[in-house]
């Protein structure tokens, strides 16, 4: 008997000490610890959730279908080259995710299908339509999600956010959490921009070019395109440049007639950085191509002297400088009325690379730092108050036994905080609510036992016997009631997101620890008291 108590006491003391060590980093005392302690002992503690420390939680969907379209476009232009090389004349067009080859004959089909076994042919009416096999399309979607994840990670690294969380969710979603971000709008723009940089030639020689107006209102875009759609040749397209009047701030658009073919993209960039134009004191982004890119750039500029080169980012024309001469070395500039911040961000994005497929924002939750701070303060106050109320009530109602239950409650809170800190669990606002409710529920097990003990005392049992049988009889009831709460907490964990998960974690930890403190903690105390003072009367 004596020995049993001893062991249980040691167990209680050790678990308490471990909890204190783990939770220490969350208290002001941690600052006073010697450096060696900070290095060796746990130093992370509880992590505050985004709802408490402020920040950005955003879910993107990678539009994998667009990645497939892009891949198809790429295959189609290679096909053109292959057919040309073999001196086979046929038109090759893309329609969405399909490649249409006209005419269709055995020789052409042979040449294509030998090169691309991943294409599924569908011949009808003298032409053949190809689409990618399902497994290939799926592979492309899958890889594009991984690539987007990687690029977003790069961009965030360069943007500089402490402890970001970036992970893939399901098939095509990416979850980004940025704690403590000051300018969420800017962060979203940096992360979510496709940043496809393209170089095309402006088609000034076409008679249509002269007909285009200099400026249209920014809401007339659709209408305008509708009007000119039928008159565009197959290899032409119209894209717009955004013009902002510096005095009035009004945005208008300038249409440009371009040759559709993309001559060069930002994939081949080596470097992008911000420079300031000496004359106008305007920032711009200067880019340097890698050797392969520089070679292509040299070719393009050489072939198109005196023509205009359109620099396009995500489908918007930024500038259309006239090519004066062949440019070697692979240096180019992107200008376009940027603010310094905008040009910095653009340089970051270009360095990190463009996304292989555009992303769509599915969910965005931004919490400002002050709301989180208020919530923590309110949570602390409510927690302390709840503890005081429960503690006072228990002493009032159950006297000395109530005091023992209160000690168990304190132990419960300590172990709960310690356990959460040891798991580096994230404390969310509902999580705080979970802790506070757990305070009220923690004494329930003791109430169950005490009420049983009272019944035993009324039945005329000695204190010792009342304690023993009270514990024994209440055990399964307590066990059942804990399991039911654990079941709901587990379900919440499974189906909940972010803050709700935090709630489930605190609730289930609180309930499990309660089983320990209520059964071992209070029982040991009772045993100890009994051992020392041979109880004549049960104060309950």
């Amino acid at each position: 008997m004596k020995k049993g108590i001893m062991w249980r006491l040691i167990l209680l003391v050790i678990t308490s000490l471990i909890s204190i060590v783990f939770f220490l980093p969350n208290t002001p005392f941690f600052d006073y610890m010697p450096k060696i302690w900070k290095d060796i002992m746990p130093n992370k503690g509880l992590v505050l959730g985004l709802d408490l420390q402020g920040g950005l939680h955003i879910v993107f969907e990678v539009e994998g279908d667009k990645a497939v379209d892009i891949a198809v476009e790429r295959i189609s232009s290679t096909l053109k080259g292959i057919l040309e090389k073999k001196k086979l004349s046929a038109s090759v067009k893309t329609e969405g995710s399909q490649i249409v080859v006209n005419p269709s004959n055995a020789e052409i089909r042979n040449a294509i299908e030998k090169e691309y076994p991943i294409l599924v042919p569908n011949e009808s009416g003298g032409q053949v339509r190809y689409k990618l096999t399902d497994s290939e399309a799926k592979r492309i979607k899958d890889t594009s999600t991984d690539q987007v994840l990687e690029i977003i990670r790069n961009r965030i690294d360069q943007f500089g956010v402490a402890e970001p969380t970036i992970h893939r969710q399901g098939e095509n979603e990416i979850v980004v959490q940025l704690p403590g971000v000051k300018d969420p709008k800017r962060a979203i723009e940096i992360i979510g921009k496709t940043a496809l940089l393209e170089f095309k030639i402006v088609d000034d020689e076409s008679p249509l070019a002269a007909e285009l107006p200099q400026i249209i209102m920014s809401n007339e875009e659709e209408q305008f395109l509708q009007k000119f759609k039928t008159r565009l040749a197959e290899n032409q397209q119209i894209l717009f440049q955004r013009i902002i009047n510096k005095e009035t701030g009004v945005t208008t658009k300038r249409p440009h007639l371009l040759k559709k073919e993309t001559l060069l993209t930002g994939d081949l960039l080596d470097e992008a950085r911000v420079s300031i134009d000496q004359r106008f004191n305007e920032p711009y982004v200067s880019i340097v191509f890698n050797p392969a890119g520089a070679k292509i750039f040299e070719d393009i500029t050489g072939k198109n002297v005196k023509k205009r080169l359109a620099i396009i980012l995500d489908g918007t024309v930024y500038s259309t400088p006239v090519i004066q001469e062949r440019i070697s070395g692979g240096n180019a500039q992107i200008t376009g009325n940027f603010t310094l911040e905008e040009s910095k961000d653009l340089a970051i994005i270009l360095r990190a690379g463009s996304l292989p497929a555009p992303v769509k924002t599915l969910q965005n939750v931004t919490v400002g730092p002050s709301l989180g701070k208020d919530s923590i303060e309110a949570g602390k106050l409510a927690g302390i108050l709840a503890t005081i109320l429960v503690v006072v009530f228990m002493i009032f109602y159950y006297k000395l036994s109530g005091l023992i239950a209160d000690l168990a409650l304190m132990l419960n809170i300590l172990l709960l905080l310690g356990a959460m800190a040891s798991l580096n669990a994230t404390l969310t606002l509902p999580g705080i609510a979970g802790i506070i409710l757990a305070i009220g529920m923690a004494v329930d097990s003791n109430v169950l036992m005490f009420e049983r003990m009272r019944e035993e005392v009324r039945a005329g049992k000695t204190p010792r016997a009342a304690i023993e049988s009270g514990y024994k009889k209440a055990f399964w009831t307590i066990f059942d009631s804990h399991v039911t709460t654990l079941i709901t907490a587990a379900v919440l964990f499974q189906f909940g997101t972010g803050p709700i998960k935090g709630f489930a974690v605190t609730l289930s930890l609180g309930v499990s620890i309660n089983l320990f403190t209520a059964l071992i903690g209070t029982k040991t105390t009772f045993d100890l008291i009994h051992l020392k003072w041979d109880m004549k009367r049960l104060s309950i």
Partner: protein
Amino acid sequence: MGYEEVEHMIEIIKNTKIDFMSYRKVAFIVSGILSLLGLFALIQIGLGKANLGVDFAGGTAVQIKFHSSVALQDIRVALEKGGLKDFDLQDLPTENKILIRVKKQEEKIGAYAETIINVMNQSFKDKKPVIDSVTEIGPKVGARMRTDALMAILVSVICLLIYVGWRFQFRFGVGATVATFHDVLAILGIFYILDKEINLILLSALLTIAGYSLTDTVVIFDRIRENMKKMIKETIEDIINKSLNEVLSRTIVTTLTVLLSALSLFFFGGEVLHDFSLAIIIGLIIGTYSSIFVASPVVILIGNKATIKKKK
């Protein structure tokens, strides 16, 4: 020895002999109304007519804190001038905060929040607006959260039924499940009547109450089971009545301690947890009521006749 000690106990309730089961008809009417109300609320939620939070309905919510008080009417006018339609405004009990919600869904989210923030910054510059939080939920995520929430409620209730059914007789399992559903529906119904927002945080309150109220029920069933072994000659009504009276003080004390926590959360826990703690408080009261007046009567109702007819 023995009796003398009893004198020192502080008891809220002493040796009660309340005939709880005689009130069961009244209780069925009350619970029937509460459950119907909850079902009605559930249908309204399904039809999208209830006050769903943006996390379930999709849409945009922006909470703004001002340096000094701003009239809701001024904000309404400013937002309408800024081109925003179909939004609602809500004053938060704490000082100088407002919540603007646009429930219309956008295919590409981001525009509404931007408009709101721009309008606030321009029109109320002197009140120093600070963005407390922005929540934008696309239609896809909203739909997914609704399904997840429904699944969460169903799965947890089924798991609880299995557990209670395994630990007790089948009819106790049914009694506990009916009581649990009753609690969830009742809170939902009351929140619907109060026009409170139905959101993810409320869901976690609902499930917490489901678990907690079941705890209460289990404790009572435990005692009924124990007494059924001892009282072979009595009717099931008598056994249940005796058991309820025996554990009554325990039921009240345990509810009271959690209620103390929930009340401090309600009054001091901050605006975000206000409705959560309200749901917990209502749920605690209803859960305690249902473990006495719903769970046990259901056991009688579906108990086999042999047990019930066991007259003295």
